[in-house]
Structure formats: structure tokens, C-alpha cells
């Protein structure tokens, strides 16, 4: 397409605010009670992160996140979002790749070292992960949208991406950076989508992605000074 400068964000929006809101309502209704299972998995990941864990624990974290990303790729992007956004058909494979990468890290690669230490970076990660698990589902109601359209970790991509970035910010290993790419890009993409829709909470996912990066930098400084 020529003359890109004449395009605005809203030119790339294919659906209305109401349709996007109902997307989550319908999705939640279809997958119920998977939300409860995902919440439980989120708690397990939180416990594994907080307690001193060895390689087995880190493999479990990556494995659980990998399975969740595969589920989100299929159930949300392929089966749900693609019905109103043909671009989701092209995004779904990358989301699935994220899941496969995390599963690879869990099963075959040298496990990343994911650990919590008493540092500003780690506490920031705790807040990010906690918000992804507990705060994100409340955003819809806080913004005046139906409670049934709440976005839940493991079901909707936004809190899933935020939680993943939080956990990975605690990790060290060769594949950690690669595993951060898809969640980071999604946080930016969803921010732009919600901005185009005029949703006031558009900034939350991008802000938390930046916070996860900050957490990583803070932890990096702390670890160097501890050494």
C-alpha cells in the first residue's frame, strides 16, 4: 500500500469496542471453569518462584507457561479472535511458537535459573505477577465493562503476557530473551489496539512490560553488586 503517512491507528481497526468486549464475554463463557484451573496454576507458579527451587522447579515453571501459551494460541487467537480479526490467523502461530519454546526450555534445554531474591527488582516482579493474576480480572469492572468480560491469566493474552514477562524477568539463561519477545510484542500490540478502541486502560499492558524490563535491570545490578 502506498502513502502510509496518511494512515492513522483507527484505520487498522477492524471491529468495534462492543464487539471486542463481547469477545471476552463469549470466550469466558465457553472455557468456563478453566479460569479456576488457570488461577490455581498461577498460584503454583507464584509458589515455585518464591520458594528456593532447583532446576526441576524452573522446568515446571517453563512447562506450565508453555502449555498455557499453547492453549491461548488455540482457544483465543485461532478459535475466537480470528473470527473478527483476520490478522489473528497470522499471530496465532507465533503465539504457539512461544508455547513451544517454553516447553523446549522445560523439557530439553538446560533449564533457566529462575529465582526470587530480596531485591527491588524481585519485589517489582511480584507486584507485576500479582497484578496479572489478581488485578487484571478486575479491570473490566473498574472501567465499566461487564464483569463477564474480565481478562484472566491463562485465558486472555494480556494478563498471560504480563505474567510471563514478570516471571522471565527473574530468569537467567540463553533462551530467556527469546521467550520474552512474543509477550513483549503482544503487550505493545494490545496497547495500540485498546488505544484505537478508546479504552482508558490501554496503557496497562505496555506499562507492565516496561516495568518487567525495569525489574530485570534492577535485578541485574543487584546481582552484580552482590557478586
Amino acid at each position: 500500500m502506498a502513502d502510509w503517512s496518511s494512515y492513522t491507528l483507527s484505520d487498522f481497526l477492524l471491529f468495534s469496542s462492543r464487539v471486542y468486549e463481547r469477545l471476552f464475554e463469549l470466550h469466558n463463557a465457553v472455557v468456563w471453569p478453566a479460569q479456576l484451573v488457570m488461577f490455581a496454576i498461577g498460584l503454583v507458579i507464584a509458589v515455585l518462584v518464591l520458594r528456593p527451587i532447583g532446576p526441576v522447579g524452573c522446568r515446571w515453571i517453563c512447562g506450565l507457561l508453555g502449555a498455557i501459551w499453547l492453549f491461548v494460541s488455540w482457544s483465543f487467537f485461532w478459535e475466537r479472535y480470528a473470527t473478527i480479526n483476520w490478522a489473528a490467523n497470522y499471530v496465532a502461530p507465533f503465539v504457539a511458537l512461544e508455547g513451544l519454546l517454553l516447553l523446549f526450555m522445560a523439557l530439553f534445554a538446560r533449564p533457566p535459573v529462575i529465582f526470587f531474591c530480596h531485591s527491588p527488582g524481585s519485589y517489582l516482579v511480584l507486584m507485576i505477577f500479582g497484578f496479572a493474576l489478581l488485578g487484571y480480572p478486575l479491570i473490566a469492572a473498574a472501567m465499566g465493562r461487564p464483569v463477564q468480560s474480565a481478562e484472566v491469566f491463562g485465558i486472555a493474552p494480556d494478563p498471560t503476557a504480563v505474567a510471563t514477562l514478570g516471571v522471565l524477568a527473574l530468569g537467567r539463561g540463553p533462551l530467556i530473551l527469546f521467550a520474552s519477545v512474543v509477550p513483549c510484542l503482544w503487550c505493545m500490540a494490545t496497547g495500540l489496539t485498546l488505544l484505537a478502541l478508546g479504552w482508558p486502560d490501554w496503557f496497562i499492558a505496555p506499562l507492565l512490560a516496561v516495568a518487567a524490563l525495569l525489574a530485570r535491570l534492577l535485578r541485574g545490578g543487584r546481582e552484580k553488586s552482590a557478586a
Partner: protein
Amino acid sequence: MLINRRIVLKTAVASAAAVLNSLPLRAAPETFALRSIPSTGETLPVVGLGSWITFNVGDDQLLLDECAAVIDAFFAGGGKLIDSSPMYGSSQSTIGYGLKKHRHRDDVFSADKVWTSYPDAGPEQISRTRGEWGVKRFDLMQVHNLLEWKSHLETLRAMKARGELRYIGVTTSHGRRHDILERIMNTEEIDFVQVTYNILDREVEKRILPLARERGIGVIINRPYQRGFLIKRFASEELPKWLPETGASSWPQFLLKFIISHPAVTCAIPATTRIEHVRENLAAATGNLPDANLRRRMADYVRQL
């Protein structure tokens, strides 16, 4: 240039259509304003129905039924032309759902688009689209946003020659690529162009609309309300005291009457999800339509707001 029967006939029909379309339309309130398609003389109601964003509802049953109700109200109010595109997500299948549910397949003037970078993929996409609508053939097929227009126009011409389409055309929006559009209008045999035109976006008045009249090409207008922005923008402004002269009774009708009163316009396609809005839009096609002087006053009034 060889004078053949086709050129003579097309010129005669275009001339007659131009004369008819330039006459002031002062139909009785209950009569719907019609415009002639220049290439054949067939008449169309001057207000149609777009489907960008509004009908892209996926498989949400609640929203599908709401859209079907809008489509039903559209036909009940005298509308005919519905426009869509493969780019509009699930809008095409929503239209098909609405046409089937309320049995309007035979009532519709179906206008869709071919939208693919691969010339060879055009026929297959059109076939898939026809399946979504559930119609036997499209009345109008357009090359969307001039994407691969040369190849696709060849395809559409061949399909029209075989009787698989009735009309062919091209589209742009937001005032983009008018230079290419003008070239196509001057050199290609097409029945329709689709462009953006409204009381603020008036670029097409300079060349495209006059050229359409000169070449006997029908004009479909998209973004009559700039996706609702114009209505929101002016909602809190006072309507002019001379509003009754325009035949409008609200801002949306004021804005729509400005567009459809241009003699080159064949049909405007506002999109909506609400029955009351579709009725309001259709009502703009009844009663007085402003003449050139009144249109100038309307534009001046809006400019000074």
C-alpha cells in the same frame, strides 16, 4: 476511435441519467429518491448500507441477530444496496446471515470487493464471498482500494462478459490515490467508482465527481460520517435556522443530504448497528434534496462552526 453501438448506447443513457440526476429531487415525503446507474439506466435508492466495522461481529449470536434486524429495517425502509469487502472481517457472513434470516436475498443490490495481492486468487475469493452472502451472483464487484487493479479489472471484465457480474468498479477511501483513480476513470470501462465524500472531505468535488458524470460512471460514497466522527463533532452544535429548507431534521440527515444531493452521487453507504439510525439515514433520501446554492450554504455553515 470506432463508433460502435455500445458507445452510442452508453453515451445516450449517460446523458439521460445526467439530465435526470441534475433535476431537483422534490419527491413527496413518502417517495424514496432514486438515482440512475449511468451505464444502464437502472435506478437505485440513493441511500445504501455499508458494513465496515459495524457488521464484523464474528459468531456472536446476539450481535448477529442485531445486525440482521438492521438489515431487515433497511429493506423495510426502501433500501437496496449493501456494500462489503473481504477486508471487513466477518461482515460478509453477517450480511449472508441477515439476508437469509429475513429472506431478503432477492431484494438486495449486492456490492462487494475483490481484495488480494494475488491476481490469480481473485476468482476464488469472489466465489468464497458469494458463498458468504448466499447470493447467486453479485450485482457489483469492485477492486478494493485499487489493489492490483489492472489484473483484477481484467478478471472482473471477463466475469461480467460471462454474466457472472452485472457491474464492475474500483474503490478508494480517505481521499487516497485519486491520481490513479482518475487515470482509471479516463482509460478503463467501469460502471462505478467508490470514494470518500462528506461535508468536510470534499476533495472529490474538484475532479472525480465531474469526471464521473462526464464518463458516465456511477459513484458510491463511503465514510459519509467519517465513521461517526462528524455526528459526534456536530452533535452539540446548533442546527441552522433554515434547516427545513434542506429537508433534514437532524445533524445526521443534514450531513447525508449534503452528500446525496450532489448530482454525481449514485448512492451513499452509511454503516450502522442501530435500527433507528438506519431509518434516520433512509429518511434523508425522502423529501427535498438541496440544490447547488443550498449545498453551498450548508458547507459554509459547517465551516464556520
